[in-house]
């Protein structure tokens, strides 16, 4: 890999990573459930793109194509489809109903982004591909976290969890320049799939039992 190629790859990756962050912030202010799912798909697409770029520009990272492909299939097509189906099937109200209003949420998320950069700062020299991807990964984690506790609906929490997962994958690719060993990647991928299915089952059962998707009603167990 010569330096100009490396430079190009780095810029592309940074660009896509920034895109992921922007989408994450859009999800924070988004109120419609189905739109959120689509946004997630788009974010996953960008992740897949990053993986593909890494695989393309790096010499001994052929297996990262696998990552890109699996992400594409799993997170861009399969999971959004599954969630869409779930939403339609149990006829969830489209409104998301966050706890904090969007202004406050945006302010907080801005703070998280700052924090992510502060935490990642000592490690920028370690990043082999792209600048600030680690910071973005950590920010994705923090904002994903925030999404989880700022939403009332069970299914939005699942979505938030998935964005956190995206953050991990971004970090995995960005920090190591060729991702994790294949067996690990595969394991993680299938785990995520199974997790979403299990969560789906639970969401379904909760909807049946509580006739609501509001997790703040899940508060009988105390003390």
């Amino acid at each position, binding site marked *: 890999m010569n330096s100009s190629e490396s430079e190009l790859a780095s810029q592309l990756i940074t660009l896509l990573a920034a895109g992921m962050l922007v989408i994450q912030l859009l999800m924070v202010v988004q109120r419609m459930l189905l739109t959120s799912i689509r946004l997630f798909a788009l974010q996953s697409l960008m992740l897949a793109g990053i993986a593909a770029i890494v695989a393309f520009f790096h010499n001994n990272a052929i297996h990262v194509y696998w990552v890109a492909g699996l992400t594409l299939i799993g997170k861009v097509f399969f999971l959004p489809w599954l969630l869409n189906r779930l939403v339609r099937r149990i006829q969830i109200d489209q409104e998301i109903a966050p706890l904090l209003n969007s202004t406050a949420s945006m302010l907080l998320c801005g703070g998280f982004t700052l924090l992510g950069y502060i935490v990642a700062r000592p490690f920028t020299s370690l990043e082999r591909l792209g600048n600030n991807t680690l910071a973005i990964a950590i920010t994705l984690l923090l904002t994903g976290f925030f999404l989880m506790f700022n939403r009332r609906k069970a299914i939005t929490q699942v979505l938030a969890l998935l964005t956190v*997962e995206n953050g991990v994958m971004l970090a995995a690719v960005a920090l190591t320049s060729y991702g994790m060993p294949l067996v*690990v990647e595969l394991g993680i991928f299938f785990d995520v799939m199974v997790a979403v299915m*299990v969560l789906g089952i639970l969401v379904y059962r909760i909807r049946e039992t509580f006739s609501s998707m509001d997790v703040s009603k899940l508060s009988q167990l105390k003390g």
Partner: protein
Amino acid sequence: MMLLIPILLAPAAAGLFCLLARSRPAMGLANMLAFGVTVGLGVMLLRKVIEPPYVVTEFEEFFRADSLSAWMVLLISVVSLGTSLYAGQYFRRDLAAGVVTAGRVKEFFVLTPLFATGMFLVVLANNLGVMWFALEATALSSVLLVALYNRKTSLEAAWKYVMLGSLGLALALFGTVFTYAAAVNKDSAMPSFNWSHLMSVAGQLDPRMIKLAFVFVLVGYGTKAGLAPMHTWLPDAHSEAPSPTSAMLSGVSLKVALYALLRFHILTTACLGSSFSRTMLLVFGLGSMCLAAPFILVQTNLKRLLAYSSLEHVGLICVGIGLNSPVTIFGALLHMGYHALTKPVLFFAAGNIHQSCHTLQMRLIGPGIAKLLPVTAVCMGLAAVAATGLPPFGLFFSEMTVLNGGFAAGHTFVSTVVLAALLAAFCGILYQLTRILLGVPKIVRTKDVAPSAGAPAMGLMLAALLVFSIWLPEPLLQVMKRAAGIIGGK
């Protein structure tokens, strides 16, 4: 001879068999058989790891067992065996009472071996990434077990368990990725992600990255291990799961998560050479112990009481490891073992009480369980005596060992806090259990539970506890000492 792969295969096979089988007794039997086999294999593994070269590896070092893993394997298999002994009768009564459907029972018999397989994989995997997804697998398989009764509360508990657990595991994955990143060298080819390899190059890892990784791993696996303040799912899940599952969760699942944390702790200490990770463990351990105490004192739900007691014990184990003298680590490992033998008995007894009284509210249960369910009451009393750290049961010895080591190493203040927290927990458990076990039953209830229900499982575990309290076979001692050496960085 292969040892590690059979340990993994036996329960997995039992799970598959149950998926296909139709007869419920056969399912129960398959479970028992599988765990019986793993106990045997565990003992063989134990004998093997105390001889040079002290490590068993298989499948090109993909699976690796040292003394610490062997000790965990033994705990997992013993608790699983006890659970499978108890579960058959337990679900027969549940079915008779119409609380669960046959499909759900089948779910239990399929998922429990898978749960166990996941735990075995955690402790036998050499690759840290594999360890992570094995742990995720245990979480996912146990979520459905927690939700087995499909009550409102059990769904709630399962939801909290899976959300918090998955989030924790996502954080742990972050940490795992960072660890891997610390090992990546610009020029070399893809490094191995095996723990043994990382340990061998520990000195060359990037210390800042390792530190960051440990923070994420601590919060992540700490959530799964139930360290305060990430423990909030624990009482919910433990109290709402069917009692056999509660026993597995409390008896070993927490410790398996702790095991994963320990592997990172060892690595971090080897890399940093400082007390960073052990101080963290100490702080979180102490926090868990202190937090559990007030909840125990004013608890109203029997199984939540037991769950908080587990929190307390996990905290103590962390403190023992955090104090980081050979004696305290030995004490902590010993504590793991004794706790694994004790807590399931308590949950089994609680299960019997639950089935008999149809509630877990201690206000409604007591008084007079001793008259109603004598065997259950005696087992519960004995196990409670053990769990509160009274001799002649082993938890007293292990607690004292931790305290002794703490004082010998000069950690007077920490040890004093530990002692105070243990005292508070004792007061709560004593008060609550006296209230429900002794006395005269207020009303004569219909006896849904045979007087000797669960006696084999409880009796066997108590007998094992008592025997191992006053007599530790040399190989066990050896394995614990070696494991303590591994954790202590020797």
